[in-house]
């Protein structure tokens, strides 16, 4: 993925994030995720149906990297099983650590493949995934 494409994906998801809405509906599990060293602070709402992730939404305030990563996460993981989601999350983490990962799984998530070079933004990109991961593990 070239730099212009990466930039375009991130900006598009930042300017027009998917499913940015609060869900007070009891069928949604809410998880808060925030960074200790900065001010990113997101609530993620997940609707589980057994082992299936039926819906994900979010609200909160965060930087361009966190918001866009959240949107990309939502777009890629709705309709997936929790196992598939954890696999995606694992590969995303691997990418941000500059370890071997499966690029085919991540799709648009590959837009952050250089983020490992910016230590202070790595936590921004992984923020929504840490939230979702926690919710899935608690759901199990």
């Amino acid at each position, binding site marked *: 993925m070239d730099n212009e494409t990466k*930039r375009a994906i*991130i*900006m598009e998801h*930042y300017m027009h994030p998917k499913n940015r809405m609060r869900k007070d509906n009891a069928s949604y599990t809410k998880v808060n995720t925030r960074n200790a060293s*900065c*001010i*990113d602070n997101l609530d993620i709402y997940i609707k589980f149906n057994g082992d299936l992730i039926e819906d994900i939404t979010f609200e909160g*305030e*965060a*930087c*361009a*990297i966190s*918001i*866009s990563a959240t949107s990309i996460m939502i777009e890629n993981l709705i309709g997936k099983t929790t196992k598939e989601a954890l696999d995606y999350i694992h590969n995303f983490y691997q990418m941000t650590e500059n370890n071997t990962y499966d690029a085919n799984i991540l799709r648009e998530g590959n837009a952050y493949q250089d983020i490992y070079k910016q230590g*202070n*933004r790595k936590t*921004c990109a992984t923020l929504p995934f840490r939230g979702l991961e926690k919710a899935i593990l608690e759901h199990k």
Partner: protein
Amino acid sequence: MNREDFPLLKQDIIYFDNGATTLKPQCVIDKMTDYYSNYSANAHRGDYDLSFKVDQEYENARETVKNFINAKYLEEIVFTPGSTEGLNMIVNGFFANLLEAGDEVLITTSEHASNVLPWFRLVNKLGIKVNYIPLDDNYYVTLENVKKSITSNTKVISLAGITNVIGDVRPIKQIAALAHENNIFLVCDGAQMVPHMPVDVTDLDVDFLVFSGHKLCGPTGIGVLYGKKELLENLEPPILGGGMNESFDNPQEIYLKPLPMRLEAGTQNIAGVLGLKAAIDYLNKIGMSKINDYEKELRKYLVDKLIRIKHIDIINLESDSGILTFNVNNVFSQDVAYYLNKYNICVRAGNHCAKILKSSVGVTSTVRVSLYFYNTYEEIDNLVELLSNYDKIIKEMI
């Protein structure tokens, strides 16, 4: 000014985060290295020359601090790890033993977490109340609003001398006078004030003052708690152990050392104390009034330029310190900070540890530029040029 004294400034960096911590001049680094290299014995211990030298320098540092803030007595100067620690000592060691359920403490929504959370603990433990002095349209504390907030239950007013987000200089002397007329204690968080202007505790007549060394060109991990002698006598030592006791045989017979040693248990941060003295000597040589005047000029220069940029919203237009807080329209503060970082400009984004301020200001996060005397007009020109190009910010913020 004095840029040549700071080794870090030899790097291609523009440092505008002086509210968080300040850079260290070579003389401070040298002093600490000298201690560690040449006479790193403990204080108040041995009968040998090295330790005697440490003793003398340690107590000389106390004298320097006493003169720096014009305290009356040496016993009123207690070395602490920093302002946070100092405020916790005041709240937990003094006020926790004095206040009762229903007593009121006045603070504001723009206080730093360390002047909020210790009081919240007393709310939960003792049933005291924390009330907020309303801020005016500029987010200032006015004497009038302090007056209105005082009730017959008010026992303490605890305020920053200068706040770390708004940068407003509070009328501490007048507030202290008003407090004392009403038998109220005045605690002053001097973390953002003492490094930037002349401070005279005797003239201000504050009951307690804290500040940190690292925010005034000194080392991290060292700060000062000032308290009026008669009050410090009643501050329960938070830490017990070596260095603070005279003798003890059993739980009923414990004899503590006099002030200030009673409040400095354990081996102290000696290198920090000596570094702090070197920093204060250094600032004194420049002159605190000169530092204050220069920072204000610098800030005015910055404001005059930023105010002309349409996409910038300045939060604290009027403030009289070196702190300027703003937002770029529709850009999250952290993204602005990352953008500037690409050009080696260090600014702070966030809520700056004043988490309840957002309810007053209406925005949850801001970009903060906090100046010190080594910043220059040219550095501000650089910053302004980068901030004036909105398309560039959007293009380069990720």
